[in-house]
């Protein structure tokens, strides 16, 4: 028994170290100058902590800082828009699949879920062609549409599980009182499913935040380029600005980290929804 207890703690400690050491090292590097970062032996703590890299990225009047500011704004806009549209559509779809009975419901539902099995990369070229044909390359609309199409199946599945676990009796009572489908959805189901909707929104936002390949291909300048793409562009031809890229990395993980820490319980409940009947 005691051995199990220790074993668990060793396992937890290992996973924590495995996860946190790279993040710590990124923060440590971001607080040093390039000269300190490349000195030997390595500095396990910043010898003279400095915020100069953050200043260079956020407040300086340079092309790099302008690119960073624009890309931060872009990523926030794209992620929020994708989250809102995804949650809206997935709520409607999940409700239909969970509560309505129509021919082909099962087939359609599994077809939607099956799209999650396709590696996203296989759709890159067709999506690029479609977006180009529609004139949506290098637009917020194009990037948001791609995010929505990518995240909608997962969001629908999470909300389907959540809504399926809600008691039908309250909805039936509202229907008996004369409420329409949409009224039942809006006034009864949505309030009850709020934790599930919040978790879906968080998961969608975090997934959208981490995107790289699709926005790389679909954006061509700083009018739409998100932070993840802009960070890669910091790399020089023959040199790597370690401390600057680390500071940009810290900025990139700051918002999702705060969201994940503050709203952790929603994420877990969302992912576990429907797993226990």
């Amino acid at each position, binding site marked *: 028994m005691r051995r199990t207890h220790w074993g668990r703690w060793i396992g937890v400690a290992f996973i924590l170290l495995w996860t946190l050491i790279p993040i710590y090292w990124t923060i440590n590097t971001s607080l040093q100058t390039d*000269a300190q970062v490349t000195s030997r032996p390595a500095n396990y703590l910043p010898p003279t902590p400095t915020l100069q890299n953050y200043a260079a990225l956020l407040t300086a009047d340079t092309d790099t800082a302008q690119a960073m500011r624009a890309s931060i704004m872009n990523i926030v806009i794209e992620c929020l828009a994708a989250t809102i549209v995804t949650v809206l559509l997935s709520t409607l779809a999940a409700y239909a699949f969970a509560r*309505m009975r129509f021919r082909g419901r099962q087939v359609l539902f599994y077809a939607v879920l099956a799209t999650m099995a396709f590696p996203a990369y296989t759709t890159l070229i067709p999506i*690029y*062609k*479609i977006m180009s044909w529609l004139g949506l390359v290098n637009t917020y609309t194009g990037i948001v549409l791609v995010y929505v199409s990518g995240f909608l199946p997962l969001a629908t599945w999470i909300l389907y599980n959540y809504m399926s676990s809600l008691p039908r009796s309250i909805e039936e009572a509202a229907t008996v009182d004369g409420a329409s489908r949409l009224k039942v959805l809006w006034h009864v189901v949505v309030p009850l499913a709020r934790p599930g909707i919040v978790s879906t929104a968080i998961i969608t936002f975090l997934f959208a935040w981490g995107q790289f390949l699709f926005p790389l291909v679909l954006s061509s300048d700083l009018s739409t380029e998100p932070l993840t793409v802009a960070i*890669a562009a910091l790399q020089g031809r*023959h*040199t*790597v600005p370690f401390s600057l890229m680390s500071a940009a990395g810290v900025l990139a993980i700051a918002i999702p980290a705060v969201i994940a820490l503050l709203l952790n319980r929603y994420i877990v409940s969302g992912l576990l929804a429907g797993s226990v009947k």
Partner: protein
Amino acid sequence: MNSRTRALRIGAGVTALVAAGAALTGCSSTASGGGDADKTTGVTISVVLAVDPPPKATLDQFTKDTGITVKWSNVDWDSLQTKIAAAATAKTYFADATDVDWSRVGQLAKLKWFHPMQDYLNVSKLKGDMPQLASFTDDGQTVGIPFDASYMVTTVNKKMFADAGITTMPTTIDEYTADLKKVQAGGVQYPLNIPFAASEGLSTYWYETTGAFGGKVLDGAGKPQFTSKSSPGYKAAEWMIGALKDGLVAPANINVSDSQGMQTLMAKGAAASIFSDYSGNVGSLYNVPSSSTVTGQVEYIPTPGVDGVGPNLTNADGIGIPMTAKYPKAAATFIKWFTSTDAQAGFAGADGPSKVLPSYALPSRLSAVDVLNKKGSLDGGDVLATLLKDSKPVFPDGAPSWYPEFSRAVYTNLHAAAAGTMTVDQAIKKIADTANQLASGS
């Protein structure tokens, strides 16, 4: 309308959307270019490279002279290759002028993703002034024009060599190896930097070392030239792995990439030499006080060879015009200007800091190098100019179209040999097997 009917309508709508999407995928347009392709003035072209833009005043002057406005995007090299491939595969416009890496020339020429430059510029006239142009030509098709002259070159920390009592620089590999041992005995624990991380830098290091041993990696048909134990390629691999096993290279180098080694070892005085360094690093890295602790100490030397000075192999970056460009003629006008003698000399600092292109290594034109040398604005200019004149393509008959797969086999297996999970013999055999397989098209 009952819920079932409504649901059916929703289902029909979804089906229609899916069908429309599929139809669009199948029938989307090809290149976005068209009637405006011949325009050479009054247009805005998109230039996407893995370098920062030239100073605004320089680009403004180009616009004033030609009527062509340049929209510049800096995308890191790896991401840029993805964008080029995605756009070409989808036959979609993304830039009017973009990167052509020397290693992709065979692939790009075969796939016809770029316009032949001879359709727009007098390429044969350029040859005499641009020794590296050969690296951008495959099967008579010039895919891009080198805009700077990156090539592999040996650098040494002369102070460390002098501290070890070495005043005459080595001209052969045997002398070089013996000198490194003297430097080590003089107190530099690991005098040689070889980037053994499994990445492209390890492949190019081997190519350069193979050249120094007097050979080449592949013949014109793509057949491996390094399988015999007496071949230069085999000896080069043995020398590199031997340097690690003998302690001339730090054991930690097993995970060090090329740029990492330059920045953290050579520039910090932890290594005394890089056999296959980048031309331009002395001026842009080792002599920059904010990034180096060895300013004024590192110099280029003619690459040591078997019986004397060896060759220098080219790994230059070029610029070309994708097939999907909207304004290929305007892009050609830009490339002509961007690679001109005046522009290149200016980018390298001949006209003062206001015209410098950040991270620009060395002009690809001999005439521009001459301009810089006459003005004394090139670190190690005399040596670099001579080496540039004699620099050679890694693949004299053009990089094979399957180069990326071959390079992956090279760095994966040499890395494994360095890590001790296979012998040099096994690594060479695996690389050769891959080359043979790729060359035969199987």
